[in-house]
Every structure is written in C-alpha cells, then in structure tokens.
C-alpha cells in the first residue's frame, strides 16, 4: 500500500506545531499501525530528518502507552483495540491518514504525538488505592466472599489501562470513564470500602483540578475504549460521589 500521512509535528511543549504531509510506500496490510510508523521514521532518519515522536511500549494492547488520534478517532477506526493492535488492513491503498496527538488541556503535548498523561497518575494518587494490613495479621483474600457478579464487574473496571482514549474522544475532554472505572474497581469490593468516601471525593476533586471537562453522556468514550469499559462505571461513580457528599 502507498499512503499519504498528515501528521502533527510539534518540536516541544512551547512550539506552535503544524500538520506535515508524508508519503510512505510499500506498506504491508499485515503491519500494525505502529510498524507503519516505524517504516516512516526509518525513511525520515535515512533522509536526515527528525523522526516522528510517538508513545509506545508493550505493543500488545496492555500498557496503554500508544495514543494516536487517527482519522478523527482515538486509536483509529477499529473497535476494542489500541493503536498498536490496529492493522493496516483497515486502510486502503492510496488513503490519506490524519494522525494527531490526544487533544485535551489536561494532556499537554510534549512533542509531536506524545502527550503528558501524568494528570491520570495524580488522580490515581488521590485515591486509587486500598490500605492493606501487612503486619502479618493479614486476612487471606480468598476467605473474603464476594458475589460473582460484583467480582466480574470489578474485574471489568480494573481492565482500564489508562490510555486516555476516553478523554481524547470525548467532545468535552472529560475523564469520567477513567475515574469511573478506577472508583468502581474498588467500590464493588469489600477491600475498597474503608476509604470509599474519601476516595471518590478526592479523585473527583483531582479530576476537576486537572482541567478535564464535564461529562454530557454522549457515550463516545465507551465506544472508543480499547478495553470496553462501560458507562455503568460512570453512573456508579456518580452514585458513590453523591453518597459521599451526603455523608459530609
């Protein structure tokens, strides 16, 4: 396949940035999207040009690092995949592909397609944890009975990889699917009850502080989430937050 790529190039956080056109040739439909980007970068390096900076790590859909907005969609046109799992067979020979970084005030661009997602980490640090007694008096986790449905829902919420596609795709740049998943993961389990009130209040406060937008329930985040995190988690977070607020 021969393709035209329109890629956002930005030298640094303070650079204005612009879209630049590139041609790539002889791309196999079996390549992943990131492998296609590798081919482009090899061509750029051979020509003595600066390669395109983009985030990636595991390249198997687990780490949540790859973060490209491809042809107007987070992680591209496929469903339930990260950019590294997106294959070039989703495109046709002669296509023009627009590639941009996640756009959100809370995810500032560091360089080219790389954005700073430490705002997610600060939200996690605000309450995305449980306290466990490690004195030797610990309770065997298997001895705490948890209804299967709750365990399944908690596990589903815990599959969030924090890639930020929900924020990138939301018209309001809202982080509520991410925070909803992190809150739900603990709210559904007995181990998460100790800090439940403070957790949701602190995580939501940090989310607001970071400058994410307000959720208007478009549902775009659920569709674009590579792990299929459900909107049910946002509804649960809303309930948890209201319960916590009523407690004082």
């Amino acid at each position, binding site marked *: 396949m021969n393709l035209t790529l329109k890629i956002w190039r930005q030298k640094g956080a303070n650079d204005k940035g612009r879209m630049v056109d590139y041609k790539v040739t002889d791309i196999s439909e079996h390549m992943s999207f990131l492998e296609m980007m590798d081919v482009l970068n090899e061509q750029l390096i051979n020509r003595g040009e600066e390669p395109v900076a983009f985030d990636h790590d595991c390249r198997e859909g687990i780490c949540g690092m790859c973060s490209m907005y491809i042809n107007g969609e987070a992680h591209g046109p496929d469903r339930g995949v990260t950019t590294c799992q997106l294959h070039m067979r989703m495109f046709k020979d002669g296509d023009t592909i627009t590639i941009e970084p996640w756009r959100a005030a809370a995810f500032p661009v560091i360089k080219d397609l790389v954005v700073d997602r430490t705002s997610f980490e600060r939200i996690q640090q605000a309450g995305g944890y449980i306290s466990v007694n490690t004195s030797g008096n610990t309770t065997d986790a298997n001895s705490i009975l948890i209804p299967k449905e709750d365990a399944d829902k908690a596990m589903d919420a815990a599959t969030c990889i924090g890639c930020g596609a929900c924020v990138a795709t939301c018209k309001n740049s809202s982080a509520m699917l991410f925070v909803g998943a992190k809150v739900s993961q603990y709210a559904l389990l007995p181990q998460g009850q100790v800090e439940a009130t403070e957790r949701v209040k602190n995580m939501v406060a940090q989310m607001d502080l970071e400058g994410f937008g307000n959720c208007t*329930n*478009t549902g775009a985040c659920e569709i674009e989430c590579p792990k299929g995190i459900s909107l049910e988690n946002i509804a649960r977070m809303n309930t948890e937050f209201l319960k916590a607020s009523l407690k004082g």
Partner: protein
Amino acid sequence: MSGLLKSSIGRKFAMALSAFFLMFFLLQHFAINLTSIFPDNGETFNKLSHFMGTNALIQYVMQPVLIFGVVFHFVMGFILEIKNNSARKVKYAKNNGAANSTWMSRNMIFSGAAILAFIVLHFIDFWFPEINTKFIQGDWSGLHDGEFRYFHELQHKFLSPVRVAAYVVAFVFLALHLLHGFNSAFQSVGANNKYTRGLKTFGKVYAIGIPVGFIIIALFHHFNH
C-alpha cells in the same frame, strides 16, 4: 454537601434534577393542551386552564420553581459548554464524532438554544399577556365577554401559519434535545442498571411522542379554525 455544585458531578446531578422537573412539567403541559382538541368546544381546556391560572399553590409556588428550573437549566447548560470548550484549547484537524456518538448528544447546546428561542416566543405569546392580565390589571376572572378566554386565545394564536411553523420547528428541536436528554438525566443520577434498556425505549417514546403531540395540537387548531 458543601461544595457539591462546585464539582463536575454535582453540576451534572443538578442539571439532571432540573431536567426531570422540566420533563414532568412538559408532560402535564401536554396533558392539559391535549384537552383543547376534545370535541367539547374547549370546555375542559378552559376549566383546567382557569384552575392552573388561579390556584395559589401553582401560581405562587410551582410557577416560581418552574421559572427557576428553566433559568437554571439554561444558564448551567451554557456555563458547562464554555467550561467544556476550554478543556480542549486546540481542536482536532479531523474529528469523526459520528463514529461514536449521536448528533443529538453532540449538539445539545444548539437544540437547547433553539428551545430557548421558542420559550421567548412562547412567553411573548402567552405568559407575558397572562401575567399582565392577572398581576398588573388584577383581573383573575379568566373571563372575556362573559366567557372563559383561554380556549379562544389559544385558537387565535394558531391562526398565523408563520407562528405554527415556528412551533413545529421548535418542537422538532425539543424532540432532538429529549432524545439524548431523557436518558442522559438518568445516567447522571447514577441509574444505569438492568432497567436501562427499557428506560431507553420509554425515553424514545417520550422524546418523540410529546413533541409530536404538541405539533398535532398546533396543526389541529390551525386547520380547524
């Protein structure tokens, strides 16, 4: 409870509560308007209108609550829109919103603005004259030439094809607003469970049925008078 409205979820919850109130108001408004097409020459409609227009609880409690609800819903809607726009300072060069969300959900601010424009027209048509008659002129009789005036006023307003067309367009926008807003309000208050699928179906019936009903009433009076 302190600072609830300062949080994103608190604001969302408040928007949903005002939406519930407005949707309930819309339902009762529709139910009363529906009586205007009963084949009793407006008798039922006149009785209900006079009751609503003179009952102290409705006039002095529910009416101020309604006005507050309407103003709050619009003001908060515009505030949230401004805040949300500032959460993405650099826009995408290419964005395919239709791939993952409905037009209605992405354009609540525009359907809302169209409804606001309609409410201004509606106030000029009905509410301001009503307030003038009752609260300024002090006439609470509801009579004109010895008969209840409500039904005749309604018929008179729907003579103009331009006004009827404006009403029809406004109710199309109301349907678009409700098609997202009805279920969005339930999601905002944390209701996403085994009843959600049924609620979505009910929401669609409400969102289309009520505005279409209002349109039919307007057209009925336009073509039958």
